[in-house]
């Protein structure tokens, strides 16, 4: 399945096809760009489907820009169409943090990510799907991508959930505990409400909604 692209875009290849959106690498006005298109869902009544896709497209574009104002690197938004529900944004050259998880630089990158998330949260933004696959390492810079589930929120719960998603995705790594500590160290260096968020993180890990017992135990021990 492929989506109709914005005028003037030529598809180079499809990067990702998820449940709600298709992400294409394209050429547009002589640049390499990423086009994210939210596809219609036939199971939803049209009115509801259009309103959901529109509000999510607008929100995502807005969050991408707000995060940048808070000092967090994100792709540049070049163009948004809330009728056809696509966003054209800059293509970030680099490797995903996930692909570097066994490299020697990984621990220091995780610490740096912690301080970036601290800045994001202090600006009242949560990412919603914070995994190493959604972080691009581009030279010295870490760039956050895919704010499709992002929201504006100052709720401690949501911030803790963000961190919880990230630490869960690190759980299979051998130096897991050290990595979590590095992340939190970075987070503390820039987050305004770090103690409350960390307290909530411990609570969430005890709820055990998705986690295995082992992960719960490791997170709960100080």
């Amino acid at each position: 399945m492929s989506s109709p692209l914005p005028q003037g875009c030529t598809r180079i290849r499809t990067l990702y096809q998820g449940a709600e959106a298709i992400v294409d690498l394209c050429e547009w006005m002589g640049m390499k760009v990423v086009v994210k298109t939210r596809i219609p869902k036939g199971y939803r009544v049209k009115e509801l489907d259009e309103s959901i896709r529109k509000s999510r497209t607008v929100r995502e574009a807005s969050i991408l820009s707000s995060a940048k104002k808070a000092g967090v690197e994100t792709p540049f938004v070049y163009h948004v169409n809330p009728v056809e529900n696509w966003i054209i944004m800059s293509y970030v050259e680099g490797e995903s943090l996930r692909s570097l998880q066994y490299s020697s630089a990984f621990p220091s990158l995780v610490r740096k990510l912690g301080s970036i998330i601290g800045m994001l949260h202090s600006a009242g933004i949560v990412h919603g799907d914070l995994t190493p696959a959604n972080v691009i390492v581009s030279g010295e810079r870490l760039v956050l991508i895919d704010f499709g589930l992002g929201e504006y929120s100052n709720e401690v719960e949501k911030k803790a959930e963000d961190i919880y998603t990230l630490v869960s995705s690190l759980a299979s790594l051998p130096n897991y505990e050290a990595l979590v500590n590095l992340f939190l160290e970075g987070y503390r260096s820039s987050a305004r409400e770090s103690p409350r968020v960390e307290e909530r993180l411990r609570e969430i890990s005890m709820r055990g909604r998705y986690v295995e017992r082992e992960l719960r135990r490791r997170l709960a021990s100080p």
Partner: protein
Amino acid sequence: MGEPLTCIGFESTAHTFGIGVVKYPPFQIICDVRRTYRPVSGGIHPSEAAKHHVDKALEALVETVSKFDVKQVDVVAFARGPGLGPCLRIGAALARMLSLKLEKPLVGVNHAASHINIARALTRAVNPVVLYVSGGNTQVLHASGGRYVILGETEDISVGNLIDVFARKAGLGFPGGPRVMELASKSSRLVKLPYSVKGMNVSFSGMLTMLESLVGKEPVEDLCFSIQETAFSMLIEVSERAMAMLGVNEFIIAGGVGANSRLRQMAGEMCRERNTVFKDYPVEYYADNGVMIAWEGIIQYMLGEKLAVEDSTVKPRWRITDVKPPPTGMYEN
């Protein structure tokens, strides 16, 4: 493949008292007897529902015995949880009695796993993502690596609870599902309600609060239509996300809310669009019944589960993540 096993199952987790008999292999439903409690007013009162089950148990047992020779029973199963304590104890007491009388092993099974596995037996779904939706539950699940994994769930109330409480406030009676479905079919006007999807989780409490304030102000048909469209879209969206994430191409719905034809229609449409298969089955097996308990009894017995009568207390809060799914290949017969 060993000798066929025959299991009798007792369901009494909530409003339905059911006795079912299943034989395997091959999978065969021998008997299905049900008695359902209907509250005079309000929702389920646990002690009244339990009293209903006590009153109807003998009648249901007599009906079962008239259709089937209980001496053929190899295993006696009962729904051990999750459910309402006073109700669970009725089925448990009968199962213990029968197990002792027939001198056959006793197995306590999980109600949620039973819903999922009767759906799998009836559809032959091999590796599905499951949307489990009932009066008390809303979860997206998948069985992998020898256990059930909850991929997403409600952060507050279940979708069945949303519908039942709304129906009560709107004076539609209990259970609300059938009436809401009927009235919804008379409208196509969408009233905007909160659409709350957070990753793979959903939340319905905001929608319920808003609905409560709209009862009496908007036509009830429009509200019924809007609940179905909004709440079910949320459920299908998280189910689709789970299928995309796991790369799974089969989808089933289990539990009483699955009896809603609009929900199943949406499921079919979602799967068609992504070239996957929604596997449907006869609507009477979406509701609580004894057959699913008997079938889960066979599965758990084959996995080596057995209970001594003195250890067979009910577990009203038993989570499905503590239960083993059936071995692969179970549904090929």
